[in-house]
């Protein structure tokens, strides 16, 4: 029991960066000075399966509880599908990146677009991030 209680803060305090996807667009340095611009949106979420497993380990001292096992199975069956990182509870958080990127560049000419899908992972929770870095041609 004590070792699980010790393990919990360690897991919570470990913030790991995760990179899932990066795409780099054409880079045009021939048309004038470049100004770096960036849009970053994120959504906090909880890894429900890990949380349930941890709860199970702490409450039942590692012997396993049938109810929590059943909950984990229900969770897996009810939320099936391909995933990148931890699933979030709101899929609209990245809907306005285009508008935000466009608003940062008055000329409208943007080059060197880097689309990054990454996350800050805290074991049972994570911040799922969509980041677009680019250069505005002035």
């Amino acid at each position, binding site marked *: 029991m004590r070792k699980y209680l010790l393990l919990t803060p360690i897991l919570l305090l470990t913030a790991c960066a995760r990179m899932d996807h990066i795409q780099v667009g054409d880079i045009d340095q021939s048309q004038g000075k470049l100004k770096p611009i960036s849009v970053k949106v994120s959504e906090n979420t909880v890894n429900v399966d890990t949380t349930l497993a941890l709860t199970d380990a702490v409450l039942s001292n590692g012997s396993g509880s049938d109810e929590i096992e059943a909950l984990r199975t229900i969770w897996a*069956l009810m939320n099936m599908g*391909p995933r990148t990182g931890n699933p979030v509870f709101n899929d609209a958080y990245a*809907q306005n*990146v285009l508008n935000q990127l466009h608003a940062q560049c008055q000329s409208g000419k943007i080059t060197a677009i880097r689309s990054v*899908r990454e996350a800050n992972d805290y074991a049972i929770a994570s911040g799922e991030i969509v980041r677009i870095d680019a250069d505005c041609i002035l």
Partner: protein
Amino acid sequence: MIKNTFSTLVLLSAVLLLNGCTSSIHMVNTDGFDQVIPADVDYKYVEASTKQHVILGFAANTNYVDEARQSLIAQCDGELTAVSTQYSTNHSFLSWYNKILMKGVCIE
């Protein structure tokens, strides 16, 4: 007896509450910002969204992606630039919805 009833209630609530409440954004891509939009020209944001229901992974095609593209193009008589594409999945019971959201700037 009480414990069993409680467990059943908890699990039943879980079945009702946990169904299809998560999503996952796989990628957001933006491209086509290589044109200056003149100050005196009108432009508007256009967007199109389509989805595909997949049961247990059986999907025969990816036509929903083409439909989103066609829908976006149909909304713009002028030049379509600065297109962003978001690919995500809404999870559900033994099935899921793949979603495509396309946005762009239409210069008229």
